């Protein structure tokens, strides 16, 4: 953080003006958007980058010698370089563009892990994983006869690190762990987990979908073998994301999908794969999405990730205390290290009704199982309501949620 950044605290009201959708009126009321863990809103700079791409650059990448193709390739590869810098990857070669976190995890499951698994082997994850860091491993386990093991959490929604370590054994072939839980907000000690795994020669994938938008992530400092992320949760368009992976792994992995772009030479008897990362990017990619992601990273760098983290931590703390004052409200997920998310139950009001009622107040939150059914099962709830914050949220947004929740209680409890 520069000295200037330290001196000037983040001004959410000024930043809100960069997000045109925040001026929308919902049922005649101003929008309080508190569903950022589902997807974040897009600043004008990102919207402009997508428009700019289709207006002045649209062409296929790495294919043509004409000017537009050069521009498209520069935008696409430029975004790769920006993302590599943003998460401190060792090189842009370590950035594979995907549709998002889900596709990145499936890629690792099928290309890196599947060839290593034999019947009786184990893949270890935690109870608080998103379905996207459960189901790809279930599929690969079904294909190979390996077993998926889930490490337990405590009543606060924290990973039991000792239990996690005990579950790492001579059959463990791979570990997947979420950096920040989308359902609970828990921040996991991923560096410690990676150290534990590496001490036993096991590679680790970190699901960083909810971490990257909220704090500075340094994949080299984490020593993560694989780090998966989604553009749309970090203010970029949907349909673009990335797998950040150590080059040594990518070099050794077979291609996942075949097609154009991922080859250097094709003959019917044999084809030669392209270099990494292109070996894993079959077909025409989401070029406009990448251009938007590049713009989102520029935007986040300009605001400053450290300032974002500091502001959001303060707002999360304030919001937690404010919502705890709502009669009958119980927070699900009270980890000591949390980011961005407040999941809760309201006595006498089902989460689904909460979602509908607060929506009529212009307040957007998520209700349901948050694609983390094992978490719901652990806390013995069918669903929760979840408010998730971004740096453009204010105490006013939280006040409006609290007032809307009081209305839920009046109507239904």
């Amino acid at each position, binding site marked *: 953080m520069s000295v200037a950044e330290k001196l000037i605290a983040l001004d959410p009201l000024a930043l809100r003006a960069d997000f045109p959708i925040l001026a929308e009126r919902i049922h005649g009321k101003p929008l309080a958007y508190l569903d950022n863990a589902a997807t974040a809103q897009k600043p004008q700079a990102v919207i402009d980058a997508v428009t700019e791409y289709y207006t002045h650059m649209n062409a296929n990448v790495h294919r043509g010698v004409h000017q537009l193709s050069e521009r498209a390739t520069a935008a696409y590869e430029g975004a790769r370089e920006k993302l590599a810098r943003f998460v401190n990857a060792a090189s842009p070669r370590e950035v594979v563009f995907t549709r998002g976190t889900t596709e990145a995890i499936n890629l690792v499951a099928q290309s890196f892990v599947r060839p290593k698994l034999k019947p009786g082997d184990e893949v270890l994850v935690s109870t608080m994983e998103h379905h996207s860091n459960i189901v790809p491993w279930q599929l690969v386990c079904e294909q190979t006869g390996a077993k998926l093991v889930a490490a337990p959490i405590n009543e606060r929604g924290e990973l039991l690190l000792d239990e996690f370590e005990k579950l790492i054994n001579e059959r463990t072939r791979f570990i997947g762990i979420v950096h920040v839980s989308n359902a609970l907000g828990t921040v996991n000690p991923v560096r410690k987990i990676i150290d534990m795994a590496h001490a036993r020669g096991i590679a680790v994938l970190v699901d960083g979908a909810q971490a990257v938008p909220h704090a500075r992530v340094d994949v080299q400092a984490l020593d993560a073998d694989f780090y998966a992320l989604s553009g749309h949760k970090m203010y970029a368009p949907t349909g673009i994301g990335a797998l950040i992976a150590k080059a040594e792994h990518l070099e050794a992995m077979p291609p996942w999908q075949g097609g154009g772009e991922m080859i250097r030479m094709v003959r019917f008897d044999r084809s030669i794969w392209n270099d990494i990362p292109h070996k894993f990017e079959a077909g025409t990619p989401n070029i406009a999405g990448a251009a938007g992601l590049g713009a989102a990273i520029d935007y986040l760098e300009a605001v400053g990730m450290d300032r974002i983290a500091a502001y959001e931590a303060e707002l999360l703390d304030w919001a937690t205390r404010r919502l705890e004052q709502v009669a009958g409200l119980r927070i699900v997920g009270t980890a000591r290290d949390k980011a961005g998310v407040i999941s809760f139950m309201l006595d006498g009001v089902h989460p689904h009704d909460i979602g509908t009622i607060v929506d009529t107040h212009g307040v957007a939150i998520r209700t*349901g199982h948050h694609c983390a059914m094992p978490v719901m099962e652990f806390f013995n709830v069918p669903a929760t309501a979840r408010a998730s914050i971004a740096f453009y949220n204010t105490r006013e947004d939280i006040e409006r949620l609290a007032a809307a929740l009081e209305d839920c209680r009046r109507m*239904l409890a």
Partner: protein
Amino acid sequence: MDLKDLYQDLIVDHNRRPRNFRRMPDANRVAEGFNPLCGDKLTLYLKLDGGTISDVSFEGSGCAISVASASLLTERLKGATVEEAEALFADMIPLLTGKLPENAPREHFRKLAALEGVKEYPSRVKCASLSWHTLEAALKNAGQPVTTE
């Protein structure tokens, strides 16, 4: 769009005090309904006596709309014929999705008409229709041995 159209007093009342909310050990038709989106779960019990539904009850948990819908269903169908129940099912789904023609007869809905408000809330239609789809499943398992746990 007025929230009061959705959460009418009748619906709020049936959510707070669901009618026929009990297990039925001697039911001869049982079906379970599950809405994975919001985690609503209900079990519907029927006692068929010839062509008549002599008793109907339910158990489970869910949002106000799904609980009230199930409660209103049991109230409406107790003593009805299977034929009447099938006809109601055929009309309920259009009522909830806003596809019932303007001039269609509505008298037979009686209190169930209060559920029509969900048509303005597409994401909530499934909550109101869950108990009706469960009813359909319970009626269709004719001839199969019914467990009463």
